[in-house]
């Protein structure tokens, strides 16, 4: 088993962190994992993305040609990566930020109004991802949050959790189809 995920959006939307969290959770659950950030122009701004792979066996290339799963938060990223999504793959997109419904045959398209569900849209999207793929347990994610947000930062745990749960709930309610369309 090997899952290849590309996550893309604008700088500041928490794209890298989202990928990092999924990757780390997969490590915790005993998988082999790679996470590669896009490191574009040396300064900030513009689009950014990361590539996450988790698998049961050591991973060859950490670079992803055709992802199984694509998670996008803006239109430029959608346009760039959607054509590369594997046949039979899954697209998650923020249908609050991207208004037109993306078109592509042979893939599952899931719209989640992540940044409407929560200010922490990346966490809401994570919830949706967890609920749909069921490959990573939310418990592992919560455990990591507790590990990372210690001391004074611990106060942010609840709102992160809340966002994740909202994302999960959204899927449970809407099913894993693009409900807004």
């Amino acid at each position, binding site marked *: 088993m090997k899952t290849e995920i590309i996550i893309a959006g604008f700088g500041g939307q928490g794209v890298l962190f989202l990928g990092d969290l999924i990757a780390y959770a997969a*490590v915790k659950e005993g998988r*082999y994992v*790679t996470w590669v*950030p896009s*490191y574009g122009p040396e300064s900030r701004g513009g689009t950014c993305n990361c590539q996450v792979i988790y698998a049961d066996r050591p991973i*060859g*290339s*950490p670079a992803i*040609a055709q992802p199984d799963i694509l998670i996008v938060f803006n239109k430029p990223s959608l346009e760039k990566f959607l054509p590369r999504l594997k046949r039979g793959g899954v697209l998650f997109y923020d249908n609050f930020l991207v208004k037109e419904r993306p078109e592509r045959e042979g893939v599952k398209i899931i719209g989640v109004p992540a940044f409407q569900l929560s200010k922490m849209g990346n966490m809401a999207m994570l919830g949706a991802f967890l609920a749909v793929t069921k490959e990573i347990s939310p418990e592992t994610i919560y455990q990591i949050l507790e590990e990372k947000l210690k001391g004074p930062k611990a106060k942010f745990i609840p709102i992160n959790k809340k966002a994740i749960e909202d994302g999960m709930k959204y899927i449970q309610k809407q099913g894993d189809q693009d409900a807004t369309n």
Partner: protein
Amino acid sequence: MSRLYMKGNEAVVEGALRAGVEGFFGYPITPASEIIETFAEKYFADREREKRGEKPLYPKFRVFMQMESEIASINAVMGGAAAGCRVMTASSSPGISLKQEGISYIAACELPCVIVNIMRGGPGLGSIQPEQGDYFQAVKGGGHGDYKLIVFAPNSVQEMAEHTMLLFNLTDKYRNPGMLLADGYLGQMKESMEFPEVPIEEYDKPWAITGMGEREKQNTIEFLFLTPEPMVEAKKRLLEKYKKIEANEVRYEAYKVDDAKILVTAFGTPSRVAKAAVDLAREKGIKVGLVRPITLWPFPYKIYRDLVTHQIDRVLVVELSFGQFVEDVRLGVEGKAEVKLYPRFGGIVPTEEEVLEKIMELA
């Protein structure tokens, strides 16, 4: 031991600290900056610990310096190494170019130290995308004069740590500078890993400049000759040492070569892609194997020579440059097999499928 998850650049720092690094001297540059940043973090966290009256986590790690330039960094490394301490620096391609004079001096004076190059795209300012265009510089010698660096080419985050530790041991053992040559991918990616067990080897350094103290003889570190004869002698000793390293320290990984007719060879990130492609090709029944040099100098010429003498007649070289590593492969193969280069440059790592396709073209 539990699985860790770490960035390649952080693994370098972790490896260095476990190897007992005493001083780090650097200057920021993408995609190597996390090395200096992580060192800064560890160092000042220890200083805070001391202020609180706690014990530092890394008591050996006494000096962290962001220097004014790469040149100052490599010269500080020269000073630290001359003083008998485990020291290192890290940079990326253009910064490493600036260090070439210093590297040549350090090699000449036989000072052990570790230099990390997280390669970016070149030449010039180029890009911060991964390439392997500094192969020649690292392996053949970007500085002046005859010298060699012990060059390790990791291909995973785990090896970023492991090779760093090995380099500290080997450079001390042979009194020779060493380089960790990694592409940008390896520096920037995070990966699951187990922390490598590399015992720290400690070497006496009676040659170090420490102030004479009890010693009767002054220690001087220089490589400077007014007449040829003593220089010939000194260089002969250097050459002997290099031969010894070549005899003892070659490392490589051979994968599924036993019955292979075709050989794929690559180092660093592309070697992972190549390995996966070998598996894909094997599934298709193609008899293909992989050789991955782990040390780029000393280079594993012999395994190539052996393989092409007995069984293999086609070699596919995958590298992220116009073709540099391929020259060493050719020197190993010596015309006994067809050598085909699959160069990717500009910042794109080929996919497993692309490499598979090249293998199939050869099959």
